[in-house]
């Protein structure tokens, strides 16, 4: 390739990337720069640049809570897959006004703040809440069930908030499946169950994977729902970060914790990419 041609291909590449410039500039100002500032802040410990990180590693607390956070996020993701995939399947198979009503029902919770939805769950799950009142009145239980202030309450609250993030990507993949593939499977003698297993689910897998990843990533950052619906042991890493930033004004330590969370999450994504391939995901 001559110099001239190489320069021209450079120009070509640059011209093709030009439309990305506004988005890139936006990310630079509102994501990359704050992120760098945050990392800078985390290195401003009074004793030495890595002091905050040493304190995080030395104390058993932060790694324990990080583990609890990932465990909760993973558990909620599994519940969302189990509830979300069948829901998306039903949604994709209905037609006309029924589908519209169902879709609105899925999206509607987005219009209410997380805080209000979480408080609504308090009224439902409490000792004197709707569920316990009904169970007591029907004589199913003798004393109120502990549905809240424990892991169960957190799972219910978080699943409620995160389920749409699971349903919508799976739904969009399912509606994109070519109907002739299903007819072909049927004409070749596959039962509905077998069609589902060998045709629909493999084709839906990228949607399920991206939904699961969305849910998992958002779940890691939760702190209001666990703080309200959880018990003593439902501490998320974000709760600890919030206390450092808001209560103790120790922004450096909070930044270090946030960066550790970012690194751990990114690490998990890399592992995820190795086994499933992020580029295959569709939303």
């Amino acid at each position, binding site marked *: 390739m001559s110099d001239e041609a190489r320069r021209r291909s450079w120009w070509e590449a640059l011209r093709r990337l030009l439309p990305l410039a506004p988005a890139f500039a936006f990310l630079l100002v509102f994501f990359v720069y704050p992120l760098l500032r945050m990392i800078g802040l985390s290195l401003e410990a009074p004793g030495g640049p890595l002091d905050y990180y040493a304190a995080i590693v030395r104390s058993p607390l932060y790694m324990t809570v990080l583990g*609890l956070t990932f465990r909760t996020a993973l558990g909620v993701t599994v519940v969302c897959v189990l509830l979300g995939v069948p829901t998306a399947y039903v949604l994709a198979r209905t037609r006309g006004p029924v589908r519209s009503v169902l879709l609105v029902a899925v999206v509607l919770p987005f219009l209410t703040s997380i805080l209000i939805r979480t408080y609504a769950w308090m009224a439902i799950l409490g000792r004197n809440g709707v569920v316990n009142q009904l169970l007591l009145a029907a004589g199913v239980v003798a004393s109120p069930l502990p549905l809240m202030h424990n892991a169960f309450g957190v799972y219910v609250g978080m699943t409620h908030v995160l389920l749409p993030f699971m349903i919508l990507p799976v739904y969009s993949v399912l509606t994109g499946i070519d109907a002739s593939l299903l007819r072909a499977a049927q004409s070749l003698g596959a039962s509905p169950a077998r069609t589902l297993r060998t045709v629909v689910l493999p084709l839906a897998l990228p949607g399920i994977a991206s939904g699961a990843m969305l849910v998992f990533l958002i779940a890691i950052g939760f702190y209001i729902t666990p703080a309200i619906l959880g018990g003593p042991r439902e501490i998320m890493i974000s709760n*600890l970060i919030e206390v450092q930033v808001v209560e103790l004004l120790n922004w450096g330590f909070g930044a270090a914790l946030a960066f550790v969370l970012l690194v751990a999450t990114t690490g998990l994504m890399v592992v995820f990419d190795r086994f499933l391939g992020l580029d295959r995901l569709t939303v």
Partner: protein
Amino acid sequence: MKGRGSRRWLVLAVVLGVVAAGVSGVGLAQERKVVIVSWGGDYQDALREAYWKPFEKKTDVRVVEDTRPLPPRIKAMVETGKVEWDVVDLTDGQYTEVRKIGGFERIDYSKLDAATLKLIDRTGQKTDAVMHQMASVGIAYRTDVFKGEGPKSWADFWDVKRFPGPRALGAPIGAGAYATLEAALLADGVPMDKLYPLDVDRALRKLGEIKPHVIKWYTTAVQPLQLLVDKEAVMVAAFSARIFLLQQKGAPVDFVWHQAMAFPMFLAIPKGAPHKDDAHRLISFMLQAENQARYGNIYYYGVANKRAYDTIPASKARFLTTFPKNLEMQFVQDADWWGKHAAAVNEKWNRWVLQ
């Protein structure tokens, strides 16, 4: 076509220019204001009625309100040099955190009314903040659950045989605003005047005794109220003013003054505040006896000016933290101790909770 388009822009620009000039002209003529920041809700309504409206009537200074003067917001304003607030209303824990980073202007006591200052406790007059009221955290319980005899001390709070039922206490993760460690030590027999320095390990050992009965270590001040009203808990640690407000609305709840923790709330001026002079005037006004009495008659925190009780009837005064009969039953939080130890307590606490 092109000509008409640019003419339209010209007209628009002229109109905008005129409007802008008019607005700033009006602004220059009347721009005397002071920005005060408190915690919203019916609390801020009471402050407005008792202090800020009368202040506007008496002076030509407009009081502009904002809410939630959280320490990190003050820190951000001070450090970026873009301070929009003149007076902030803080608990002593919050005040102590911001003071550590040097976030306040010095109070110029020569600008405050000297006679008024004599009526306010010396400990409430800091170099960079003045106490305007006191609040209390103590035992609150359901009177319909404990009919006849309710809990009278933290030892009773720990006595799950005589007073059965779920409890809620605050997580001492910030500057210790919920008196959890203090309560444990009092329940363990430490006298009120020997609490500080807190023996954290001893407090956690004592808390271990009621850990199974505590359904929630709450993290915001409204949570214990919700838990009590919903009967999720029958006994909690909560703020006196909030409990008495619920009582007025007919909720079957009561507050125990004995062994409650009192703490001052301060007015302070963030470093670099734009209207320092009028901030001093507003603070001075808010401390005067007649204005404090008006506030004490409306709301449920303890007024700082002793003379205010001359015109608050005893039927109302008994709800207030600083009413002498109430104050002698309580202890005062040592915010300095908390300022030094909050971070260490926070970590120790979280490890204990996860055990």
